[in-house]
């Protein structure tokens, strides 16, 4: 009886991983194209951006906020890098860093409104979402900017070992360390649990809240750069709806939108679950519109599982 309970507990605690493994096996079984080097590498190349966005979103969600601007900030990252390279002749590596700085400024703006002016994250990031999209359109005239070969696409080129993928893994490791092993991570989570209590404990909660929006924007900008690198085109229309995928990844990974609860590794897995669903349906040639219906249903199922896990804890 007790053993059963323990086993059940383990299954519930790790349901994100189990769903992922099950899904992975199912994918292997129903399509022989799925488990191939080419397909898996493509999934990672495609998902590096969305995974980074989800990590940034997770940081914001841990504080009890939400960042709707991530998709538009991606567009700024992609467009600005391209504009700097083509119109100002800046080499691609410095161009990325300038874009990162600019993206972070947008996040600082959101974070200031939330931390110091007490805006709700939803409202502040909604405004910045519109502003950022407007900036992306303005600087590109809403037309795609083709980039020279051998510049930005180095990031996704075979000769250099697809740099996007190791960069993504390095960032995941850094965020696992931040979450588990730093006072900073601890206080971000604490701020999301009960911000007043943390403040009364003598901690400057505003700084932590500001910082997560900056991180989210920086990661989103980088995600935009990744997307531009893969296509070698700077584009102001990318990232539409990316905020919803990022939130879904966090939630599938067990994060609570009320704050204080969430996991870096599970969020990454959550993003990969969404990716696998998309990938297998493409391989099976499921049309795009029904794909969305199935994706939505899977999100509901995942959240239902989280709710059940919570019940068990009571």
């Amino acid at each position: 009886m007790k053993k059963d309970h323990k086993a059940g507990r383990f299954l519930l605690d790790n349901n994100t991983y189990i769903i992922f493994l099950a899904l992975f096996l199912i994918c292997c079984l129903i399509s022989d194209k799925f488990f191939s080097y080419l397909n898996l590498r493509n999934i990672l190349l495609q998902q590096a951006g969305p995974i980074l966005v989800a990590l940034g979103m997770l940081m914001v969600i841990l504080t009890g906020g939400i960042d709707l601007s991530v998709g538009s900030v991606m567009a700024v990252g992609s467009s600005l890098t391209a504009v700097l390279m083509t119109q100002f002749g800046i080499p691609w590596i410095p161009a990325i860093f300038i874009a990162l700085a600019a993206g972070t400024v947008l996040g600082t703006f959101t974070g200031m409104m939330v931390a110091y002016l007490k805006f709700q994250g939803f409202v502040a990031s909604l405004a910045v979402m519109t502003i950022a999209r407007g900036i992306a359109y303005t600087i590109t005239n809403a037309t795609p900017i083709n980039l020279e070969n051998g510049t930005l696409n180095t990031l996704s080129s075979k000769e250099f070992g697809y740099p996007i993928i190791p960069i993504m893994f390095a960032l995941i490791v850094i965020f696992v360390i931040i979450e588990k092993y730093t006072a900073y991570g601890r206080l971000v989570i604490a701020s999301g649990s009960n911000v007043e209590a943390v403040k009364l404990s003598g901690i400057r909660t505003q700084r932590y809240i500001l910082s997560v929006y900056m991180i989210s924007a920086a990661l989103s900008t980088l995600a935009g750069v990744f997307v531009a690198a893969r296509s070698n085109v700077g584009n102001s229309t990318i990232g539409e709806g990316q905020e919803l995928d990022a939130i879904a990844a966090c939630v599938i990974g067990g994060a609570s939108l009320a704050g204080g609860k969430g996991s870096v590794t599970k969020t990454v897995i959550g993003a990969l679950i969404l990716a696998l669903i998309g990938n297998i349906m493409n391989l099976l040639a499921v049309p795009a519109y029904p794909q969305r219906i199935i994706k939505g249903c899977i999100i509901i199922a995942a959240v239902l599982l989280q709710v059940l896990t919570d019940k068990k804890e009571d």
Partner: protein
Amino acid sequence: MEKGQCRLEMDHISKHFGGTHALDNVSVRVGQGEIHALIGENGAGKSTLIKILSGAYTKDEGTIQIDGKEVSINSPLDAKNLGVAVIYQEFMLAPDLSVAENIFIDKLSEKGKLINWKKLNQDAKERLEGLGFGNISPQKKVGSLSVAHQQIVEICKCLTHNARILILDEPTAVLTVAEIDKLFRLIRLLKEQGVSIIFVSHHMNEIFELCDSYTVLKDGCFVNTGKVKDVQNDDLIHMMIGRELTQMYPERNAKIGEVVLKVEDLNAGDRVRNINFEVRSGEVLGFSGLVGSGRTETMRAIFGVDKKDSGKITFLGETVDFKEPRDAVRKGLGYLSENRKTLGLLVNQSIRINTTMSSLGKVTKRGFLKHKKEKEYVKELLSKMSTKYGSMEDDVSSLSGGNQQKISFAKWVSADCRCIVFDEPTRGVDVGAKVEIYEIINSLAEQGVAVIIISSEMTEIIGMCDRALIMAQGRITGEVGREFLNEDTIIKLAMEG
């Protein structure tokens, strides 16, 4: 008890969660128009019993009879229809709706009818007058009322459903002396009308003043039941904690030293006017007075939570001006807030995380957490405070009130403060844990910490403090040394101004 007179009979009730028995074969009987005290430490099973009666939990075994008929209560709606109502410490009121809307909230949803506001307000007024509270305006927003009046609205709301059994869960915890008086008058009025009342309180004097009969629970088991007039205070405490309580307020052997905190001419808003006081190392200074007299506000202003208008604060010989709590904590001033759930603890985080919140510096190196060190540190600290917990990874909300309070204490004890303000340190804590908390406070004073206790319990101020300041309407109305501290003096000064 005669048949027909017995309103409620709960027989051989058992309930377990997983492997633990929350209630084991417990029986309670309450007569018609009787006030019955339900007594026990935190974790004794009172809440579980109340929740079974109100339909929040379902019992595993046993029977419930109301007015001689066996009933099954499977949901809060069942309980409501049977006339069972509970007034919890956290009220079930919508703060943005008016008093009348709250009282008649279930009538507002009746289908196909428009609301007759005039009649609704009139009915609410009549009902409130019937309870002796005609001064509460039905049109006012509930959120703008005092806690005491909110409680009355809550009671009034329950009575509109013809409650036959009213359960009051620590109703006096948030009230001032005068308000408690009014509440007791109301409870007696309801008793005359034949309502049966189950009264939960940690205050023995209230039980003796108000209740007819009692049932004592301990560790989920039935201990004893009887008439209140047949027992003594010490008998009840003995039944409750299962041992003699030799000393409610343990001895302290602290040396009073130099001035740690000195406040001169402090003003902040309406509630803090011209406050002057000092507290020395090793001293326990009490702040007494009615709820809302400005005690908490004074401390919040000193601690940097609220803005000061004027005044000079000297801490450890240095003039300071704490702009935010962080400044105060860095210098060594700690403040344990009065409401541990909303301002003190991170209820959905682990015991470990809560314990080291204010002292992360001790378990980190260059910003990186040392998990092993942290675990050892937490273990040692909590065992020093005899905190009972399963695993330090459990949520802090899984603990009883007394142990939760010890965790909030741990936060400050571990932060190496030179002066700590404890705002209502034993609210909602049972007798046994209270003594342990007093011991922690004493050991802090013995280590040379200057301690300030804000408390609405006069016995606590009298028992614990070297000196007490009494506040009324934002001003200090008197200072009383230990040898002159008694309830009469405190009440007199608290009613001044």
